[in-house]
């Protein structure tokens, strides 16, 4: 995700624009890019969505199948999240088994959904200890222009919200919508020297020192956090980032519902 090099000139331009309060694409520091969500784009999936966050383009499909519960949670459905950073999306992505970048991304998206209790998994039990619904969230990145954490989370949430559980085909009664009960929104902030910018674009992300993703729910409560990259944050910076994440999350939440 950061193999390609940004010229010093470009780095300087990006920083000075942000320092002046107006980023290279005209945004304010705490302003996310335009979010466009299209629900239900793939007929072969039980749920799907395409999300464009600026020029970052992600398609997410949900497949539901019947499987076994984990022994220690015999009454709850199972969630499995996979990200494919296919080489179509960027010259820096390579075919092959997922690299640490993609694994971290998938796990952070997964935790954002799991820990926020977005889907009521207790309602996905078919026969305790034996059969439950398994949700596969497959995140397919088509075009990479920065901030996959948020684009992937939005795509997953929007796709889950359209998902119809195919109970009938399994002889398990009528089809029903996936029981979505919470609306977590992840907001990622990048630190560039002394500046904090929300929803970093590709150039910003490539020169960022540190990254913090904060997932908040409809009450503004924190459901998941993940710091990344080689730099650090002060505790004060973390607090400012959380506050911004709450605010931006509130603004974006309505776009995710179908």
């Amino acid at each position, binding site marked *: 995700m950061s193999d390609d090099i940004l010229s010093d000139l470009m780095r300087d331009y990006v920083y000075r624009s942000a320092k002046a309060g107006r980023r290279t694409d005209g945004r304010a520091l705490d302003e996310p890019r335009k979010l466009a969500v299209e629900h239900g784009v*793939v007929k072969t999936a039980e749920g799907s969505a395409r999300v*464009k966050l600026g020029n970052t383009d992600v398609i997410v499909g949900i*497949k539901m199948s019947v499987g076994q519960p984990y022994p220690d949670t015999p009454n709850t459905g199972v969630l499995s999240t996979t990200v494919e950073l296919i080489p179509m999306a960027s010259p820096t992505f390579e075919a092959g088994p997922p690299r640490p970048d993609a694994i971290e991304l998938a796990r952070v998206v997964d935790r954002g959904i799991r820990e926020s209790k977005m889907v009521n998994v207790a309602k996905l039990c078919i026969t305790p200890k034996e059969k439950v619904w398994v949700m596969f969230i*497959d995140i*397919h990145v088509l*075009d990479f222009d920065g901030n996959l954490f948020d684009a992937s989370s939005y795509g997953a949430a929007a796709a889950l919200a359209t998902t119809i559980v195919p109970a009938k085909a399994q002889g398990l009664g009528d089809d029903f919508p996936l029981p979505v009960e919470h609306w977590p929104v992840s907001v990622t902030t990048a630190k560039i020297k002394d500046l904090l910018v929300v929803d970093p674009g590709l150039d910003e992300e490539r020169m960022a020192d540190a990254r913090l993703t904060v997932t908040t729910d409809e009450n503004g409560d924190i459901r998941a956090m993940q710091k990344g990259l080689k730099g650090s944050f002060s505790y004060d910076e973390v607090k400012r980032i959380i506050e911004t994440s709450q605010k931006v999350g509130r603004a974006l939440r309505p776009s995710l519902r179908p």
Partner: protein
Amino acid sequence: MVDIEHIPKELKLIDEKGVRLDGRRHDELRPIRIEAGVLRRADGSAYVEWGGNKVLAAVYGPREAHPRHLQDPARALVQCRYNMAPFSVSDRKRPGPDRRSVEISKVISEAFASVVFAEQFPRTSVDIFIEVLQADAGTRCAGLTAASVALADAGVPMRDLVTSCASGKIGGVVCLDLNKDEDNFGEADCPMAIVPRTGELVLLQMDGHLTYDEFQKAMELSIAATQRIYEMQRDALRRRYSLSIDEIMKESPAAPPRETELPEMSTQIVGEPELDFDALDEDREGGA
């Protein structure tokens, strides 16, 4: 899970009037839509909807081939990676290449090898990525057709576009462009790809059961259809070109230099599959 062994007996894929289940006649294509230049990072790209298929193609290159020991000092490598999204088929496909996609990637790579002017770019590779987002039989033809437009969009020098289509046999009748039901319950499928200007066949596969006469009928249907698809490919490129001009005029200098909107995907699909089967069982069917 649908039991395909018991269905064909009831199912009449084509009626006495020669009308197929989705209303098409034997020589009719499914609706096809082609858009060029739909992705930002790729050097060239295209999107194809073809019946219930939704396929994206992207091209990078010519760029330095690596690992280096694969470089050909005399020419560019033309390498295709065909991939199905896990959610593109009814039963989730595990991510990563399976045997079927490895074979399709190979035959598509070979189909483009003689068309690209590879000698102009020694030591480089031209990388073609095909992603099947929604599958409904004929994905290799749709992917090839999209990849061809993406190559042109990337400005890769070629002798001509490559155009692809399949014909097959259902209910004893040779028909053009089988959909998923027809492919599953039909008697034969024969995908091909052609260089329209010269008539050279650069891809040809067949499985099922065709007499020699039926094979010739199938080929003639396909060859005729590729002429129509070729026209759609060129249209897409023409639209893309003029659109870009418009866009450039409208936009501020800071704006991205190319059109990047992924076209809205249609949600109305002609001939959408009611029945759908395991694409994982990779050696059993080549029809997706």
